[in-house]
């Protein structure tokens, strides 16, 4: 056909517009998923603000902040990849993508360290692990940590998905023509930025409760 991946589109330009819109609709859908989870957290926070504020102080603010910096930086490199792909500087684009996924991996490593620390301190009431908590109201603090692990691991899963897609895209780099390379960078970029935005909300909501 005329250089489009889908038989439905007649020109690459129209296809790009369709791809772009599809990504936004997908993001809308994902936003509702996270919205519902945030709502659950908000309701619990309204009910047990004090317990949640106390529990939140047991999270590592330095690690959380560092991770936020990592993720913001990865979004920046991803935006660079988009810019470079538009300029058809393919080699540089690949480097930017590699940097993005490397930063994503770093985020996961730091998150893993955090999880390990929390498990050691007895703050992970999951899979039969003991829950040791010295502050007031341990019942609802446990609830907080349950939500914390649920939310952050859901976010981490999304990040892992992004890293896998970027890696796969680089692996298939040579087989793709310029138009589809650009299309893929744009699409995965939108997804990556969205996962970043989720973290931008998750970070203050979980780490910065101060009441």
């Amino acid at each position, binding site marked *: 056909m005329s250089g489009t991946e*889908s*038989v*439905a*589109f*007649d020109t690459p330009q*129209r296809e790009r*517009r*369709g791809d772009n*819109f*599809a990504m936004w*609709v*997908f993001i*809308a*859908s*994902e936003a*509702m*998923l*996270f*919205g*519902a*989870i945030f*709502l*659950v957290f908000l*309701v*619990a926070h309204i*009910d*047990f603000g004090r*317990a949640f504020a106390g529990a939140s102080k047991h999270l590592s603010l330095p690690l959380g902040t560092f991770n936020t910096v990592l993720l913001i930086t990865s979004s920046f490199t991803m935006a660079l990849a988009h810019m470079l792909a538009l300029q058809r500087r393919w080699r540089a684009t690949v480097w930017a993508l590699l940097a993005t996924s490397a930063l994503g991996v770093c985020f996961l490593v730091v998150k893993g360290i955090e999880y390990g620390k929390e498990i050691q301190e007895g703050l992970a*009431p*999951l*899979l039969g692990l003991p829950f040791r908590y010295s502050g007031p109201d341990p*019942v*609802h603090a*446990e*609830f907080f940590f*349950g*939500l914390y*692990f*649920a939310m952050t691991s*859901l976010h981490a899963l999304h990040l892992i998905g992004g890293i896998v897609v970027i890696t796969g895209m680089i692996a298939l780099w040579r087989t793709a023509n310029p138009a589809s390379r650009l299309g893929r960078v744009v699409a995965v970029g939108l997804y990556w930025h969205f996962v970043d935005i989720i973290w931008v909300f998750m970070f203050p909501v979980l780490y910065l409760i101060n009441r």
Partner: protein
Amino acid sequence: MSTEALRPSSYLGEGAGPAAWLLTTDHKRVAWLYLVSLTAFFFLGGAFAVLMRVELATPAGDLVSDDTYNRLFSLHGIIMVWFFLVPSIPATLGNFLLPLMIGARDLAFPRLNLASWYVFILGSAFALASVLAGGVDTGWTFYTPLSTLYANGFVSMAALGVFIVGFSTIMTGINFIVTIHTLRAPGLTWFRLPIFVWTMYATALVMVLATPVLAASLILIVLERLFGIGIFNPALGGDPLLFQHLFWFYSHPAVYIMILPGMGVVSEVLPCFSRRPLFGYKAVALSSMAIAVFGFLVWGHHMFVSGQSAYAGVLFSFLSFCVAIPSAIKVFNWSLTLRKGEITFETPMLYALFFLALFTFGGLAGLFLAALAIDVHVHDTYFVVAHFHYIMVGGMVTAYMAGLHFWWPKLTGRMYSETWGRIAATVTFLGFNLTFFPQFVLGFLGMPRRYHTYPPEFQFWHILSSAGAVVLAVGYLMPLLYLGWSLFRGARAPANPWRATGLEWQTASPPPPHNFETMPVVTRPAYAYDMKGLKHERFSPHREEAAQ
């Protein structure tokens, strides 16, 4: 046959064998993949229903144990809702027709479309595995804390199945939205779109925005069951009513996923067999969008007696009455479409008229449920069961049958038996009313739903209902036979057997692989059946060359 050689190549002749079907990206073949899988689920869910109705013929629980009965209605609900009704028209007829109706070669993302079917099958595998392992006894609503702390079936597996199928729904929704926005043929403006396309758009909107919330609530149920996070467990600080909010935020709009496509089908069939344009086209189109949006505002009417605040109940009741208006508008418009027509009564038209009756009565019953004081009495009784079966079975399944017969020549290139079609439609209509009308009376009497045994004074109405279920089952089995037969022996169908105006009829039956020999250009509104008033526009097939 020599005619075979003269036919333009059709999508059906593109390649036989399992691989050609299982790896196809042609939306028309993907529609068939869905059609076959959904038919299987329809009869599986139907079998559960028949077993339930047989059990309920007597007040005592003498056929199956209470636990088995609970699993029967739970699986009936889960399978019928997520594995039949939600995907029914969109994934089959919608998949097949949407590109044809807007003059596109395929859906925007053909591979995503195929992938959505595989995701559907993966979800089905989980659901079927949970059935084979022993089922679930939570009801299709998965209410907490029953589903999280007390249910002993294979809840996580079933929930996972529904969760996965949700992604298939979302993928279909994204595909439809992008297709309708970006791939309409030249000249096909929004207000020239067939109503079926409008309803697909509205449905897709609901699919994309509501399904993730269901996904979230199912994730939370599974997390709670596996890891003991007390999100809905009051002993740990959770809130069981929060689950109901999340669940109905999805499941009430999902009711509109289940009825909007049916409205779309009927809006195609009624004008065609009345030879009249659809009355009040714009109102019908916009009311579909109104239903999709307002449908999100009314979920609290499932919770009037749940302990939510009374004033929230009043608000949700008010909004529920508002959402009734667009449906009422549609009913009036459909009825008026018949006026001054040249009406014939082929099978699709019979089904469409039956839809009109059943949907109207089901919808009017909804007024009782939206009225707060009455809902307190009939909530969670057979009145509710009767109401939503009038909408989903009497409405949606009837419309599905109308659509299946209407487009059968286009899907298969064959005609079905008109006699058998009319008999089956009539049997279904009678069987349906016999099954579900008595349930309105039962509900008003106070018969709660999901009861394995019941007080003997209710038996008269239960017997009527059970008898009706048998008739209804016969009504649904007949098309399986004569449509199956026509697949191989039916008369060859012409391109446009009903003399209909839609773009899908302007190409061969069955259509060629990329739908149109030459891409169409649209010059007139939908449903130009009326020669008067449109006389100045030439009635010509949409075959003009695309002015690219």
